[in-house]
């Protein structure tokens, strides 16, 4: 008899302890908010909004940042932490895609210049 009670008591004790610890001890992800916001700003500055693929990921990052902040307000810091990780990953991808586009445009210009020089005609501005 005592053994059943003992087990039940132990189970309840461990279960409730873990729930309490999860809620109370998960750190507030302020640093992740800051780094997500910084990445979003950087993406914006690299012109991500003008590159369709990059713009999509920038938008996702912004939405996830808002969701993360809302979760923090509701004191669900763990969920918030993971949502903010998504936000940062999307913002960083937006920056990279923006750079890719920029490099491709530059490479295209350089190739046109090669063609122009080889054909003996000066490169026409605006024909890239």
């Amino acid at each position: 008899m005592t053994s059943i009670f003992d087990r039940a008591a132990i189970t309840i004790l461990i279960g409730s302890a873990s729930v309490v610890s999860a809620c109370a001890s998960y750190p507030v992800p302020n640093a992740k908010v800051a780094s997500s916001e910084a990445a979003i700003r950087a993406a914006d500055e690299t012109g991500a909004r003008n590159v369709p693929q990059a713009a999509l990921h920038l938008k996702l990052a912004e939405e996830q940042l808002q969701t993360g902040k809302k979760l923090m307000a509701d004191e669900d810091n763990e969920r918030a932490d993971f949502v903010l990780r998504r936000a940062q990953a999307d913002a960083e991808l937006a920056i990279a895609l923006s750079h890719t586009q920029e490099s491709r445009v530059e490479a295209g210009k350089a190739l046109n210049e090669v063609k122009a020089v080889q054909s003996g005609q000066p490169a026409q501005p605006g024909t890239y």
Partner: protein
Amino acid sequence: MKTATHNLALVLSCLLTSSFVACAASQAPQELVDARAAYQRAQAGPAAQFKPEQVHEAKSALDQAEKSFMDDPAEQKTRDLAYVAARKAQLAEANAATAQADSLKGKADQDVKTETASQLADARTQLASTDKALVGTRQQLETEKKAHADADKRAKEAMDRLALAIGSVKEESRGMVITLSGSVLFASNKDVLLPAAQERLTQVAEALKTQEDHKIVVEGHTDSQGNQVSNQSLSERRAQAVVSFLTSKGVPVDQIRAQGLGQNRPVAENTSAEGRANNRRVEIIVQPIEKR
């Protein structure tokens, strides 16, 4: 007994739980499926070559997601970790594409530089050869100019020597005029050159041969004695005799011609013996050709 029943229930519930876990394991969340595919793509493409460290990071993130999935397939955390892993794989791909484009641009810039340099070198070579040709042409012009000046000088010297030898060379508006007395050249009423005349005309021929780019007219003149028609004819024959002699001594045929003027152009009165002697003469006129 009660304890035994409870233990059995515990075992059964464990078995059920584990079968549930196994069942859920085959149902990976969409995020994890996407992350696996994204990683496969990244590690098989240019990212492996250009951004291996980022591909490795994507793998670590994927491993974390897989572990979370193994630990608790139903947890939202697995989806989040997988989502992040997929983005990391895409990031590696994007950065590899950037590196590829940058490398292409670098090569193109180098090509432009090389091509421009080569074109510049060609232009310089061409310019140098044009310069050389120009110098050559200039030198040729100088040489020709000098040759002309030398020829002119020689011609003038020859005429000067001739003037010293035979005394009557004058520069007139119609050209250099060499006057030879008729009595020195011909016997009266004859058109055959006297031996003494031949010596003198040989000197004249030597001087005339130096007169390149000149035309030479040999004019025969008589005094007014006798018949005008026969005088005209005599002057023509005498002029022709002089031309024939001069060409035989090397004066070019196409440069010289004869002209008889009879008694029409006296240089002195025909009333005195001395005047008539002066009128009987042969004049050789040396004129520069117009093109010079």
